[in-house]
């Protein structure tokens, strides 16, 4: 079993200005069951659009997404529901993804009810089981979201996603909104759940430190495209694409201290507007090794060695 994306494109029409936003510009990637794919990139690179497309919340403008050979399809309610029993999404903000006026036990039992996986009489027991699974005291089920801490709320969101007994969890910046000292707890929980339930993850983040910690393979995205792909060791230890290199250099890190020159290794300029994509390689305007042909021809992903892929003609 695997999740496969082939040349996925997504464009949004801005009705007010009549312009087209190019969110995804041909993404192909395959996630094998049991693997964790980390997707890293800055705002506007399309990583959240990708997450939404994978769970069927967005319809790709072109290309295909298949799970176990079956196309992900949000045209039919039934097929979308059956997709959601295999693929679930956990959002960044556990404050806005829980109903503030619903007790958390009800939030979870509602999700169990939708998928009809548990007999009505057993739903209450299943809620307790799910809360314990994510390391929460079952007594919390009668609490409201505002009575929980950020870390507890994110655990509730994870429990709710797990209620559908999915095979794949798409985690869109699951720890970014949490305080530093509770991030580690949630990361450890995700790693334990992956092992105990045999889950597959797509872990999306702008934080390379977290991506590096949890991923088996990493895809680096820039302006709606994957620019580099490989095992986590290859991407972190042996990055090839100039954007990946810049991203790693800019990653705040506490292992090197008191060295102001660390701050000067920076990437010039800003991410171009996804409405007017640059010609050729979309990174050429900020690239230190760009040659004239980079602004003409867009490089496609090519295999450097053993599945380490890079989209750059100059490396």
């Amino acid at each position, binding site marked *: 079993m695997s999740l496969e994306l082939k040349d996925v494109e997504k464009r949004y029409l801005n009705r007010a200005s009549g312009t087209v936003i190019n969110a995804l510009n041909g993404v192909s990637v395959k996630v094998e069951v049991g693997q964790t794919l980390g997707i890293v990139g800055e705002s506007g690179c399309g990583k959240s659009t990708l997450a939404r497309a994978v769970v069927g919340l967005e319809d790709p403008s072109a290309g295909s997404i298949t799970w176990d050979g079956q196309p992900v399809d949000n045209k039919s309610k039934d097929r979308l529901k059956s997709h959601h029993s295999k693929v679930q999404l956990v959002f960044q903000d556990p404050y806005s993804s829980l109903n503030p006026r619903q007790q958390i036990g009800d939030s979870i039992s509602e999700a169990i009810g939708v998928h009809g996986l548990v007999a009505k009489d057993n739903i209450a027991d299943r809620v307790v089981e799910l809360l314990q699974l994510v390391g929460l005291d079952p007594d919390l089920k009668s609490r409201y979201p505002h009575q929980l801490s950020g870390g507890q709320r994110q655990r509730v969101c994870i429990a709710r996603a797990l209620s559908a007994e999915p095979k794949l969890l798409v985690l869109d910046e699951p720890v970014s909104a949490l305080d*530093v000292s*509770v991030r580690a707890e949630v990361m450890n929980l995700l790693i334990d759940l992956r092992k105990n339930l045999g889950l597959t993850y797509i872990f999306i983040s702008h934080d390379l*430190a977290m991506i590096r910690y949890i991923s088996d393979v990493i895809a680096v995205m820039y302006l709606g495209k994957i620019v580099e792909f490989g095992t986590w060791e290859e991407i972190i230890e042996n990055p090839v694409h100039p954007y990946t290199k810049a991203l790693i250099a*800019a990653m705040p890190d*506490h292992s*090197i*201290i008191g060295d102001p020159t660390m*701050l000067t290794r920076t990437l010039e300029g800003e*991410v171009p507007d996804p409405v007017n994509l640059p010609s050729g390689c979309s990174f050429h305007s900020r690239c230190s090794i760009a040659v004239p042909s980079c602004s003409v021809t867009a490089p496609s992903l090519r295999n450097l060695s053993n599945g380490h892929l890079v989209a750059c003609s100059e490396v």
Partner: protein
Amino acid sequence: MSNPLLSVSGLGISTVQDPRTLVNSVSFEIMPGEAVGVVGESGSGKTLTALSILGLLPRGVATSSGSINFDGVDLTKASSENMQNLRGSAISMVYQDPMTALNPVMKLGRQLLEVIESHEKLENGSIARVEAALREVGIPQVERAMESYPHEFSGGMRQRVMIAMALLLSPKLLIADEPTTALDVTIQQQILALVSEERRKRNMSMLWITHDLGVVANLVDRLIVMYAGNIVESGTVSEIFNNPQHPYTHGLLSSLPSRNDKSRRRLTSIPGVPQKPWLVGNTCAFAPRCFKATAECTASAPELIGKLEKAVACFHPMGDK
């Protein structure tokens, strides 16, 4: 050694009605030209401490004890007129979100001129001065930028404008409250490089507030670690990172994945959540989450003991490595 530029002593901040302690007897110093980072999680009191220096505490919150000595003046006793004169000239601030800190319906040039106008007389050279300030922080096409509104700029460019505004009147102290938290990492790096360079060039003191230890590792000289309204540890960057003494600092550092750790060892987490500062009482605020806590820790509050280079508030510090 010279006298400190800023000396905060026994500063307490609490709500006015139904008094609740938010910051509990905080003391620290900033030397001329020195950059100090304040690290803490949400609710630790780091932002309130910064706002109290500027006399900008939110309504219903006030300083309840202690003094804030800036360049020979006690700011807790200064008149609002004196504070108005200091703000933006001797002490200026860069906020987390430039979109809400800038006026959305006023052209940027006008907003920067207003800073000069509120402290000095506008003169023929004022526009050139504003343009130079924008050029200095790397704003392209400055003449056009002067005529633009904040929404026409990206988050990174807006933050550059904020920095230009804060540096316009050559402050002695720049206070920055998580100014890069909302930015992408490569843009964050650009802003950190810019601020670091400007500070050195001007020999300006700086107070940098953040929740991210990685951000300040190469930016500041000394660090203050806050927890539930208290300073639990302070010291030079190398002491804090290489030889943390407070179990909280130690726990915080071991909960971060490091770029150089090839083993991907399990992250050490700190169990529980921070206490509310007003519920701490006369105990160590971290005791309920601390693996070294004893009866002593809940019997009284440890004081911050040590020197500028290294001080810790703990009965059972980690000990030297």
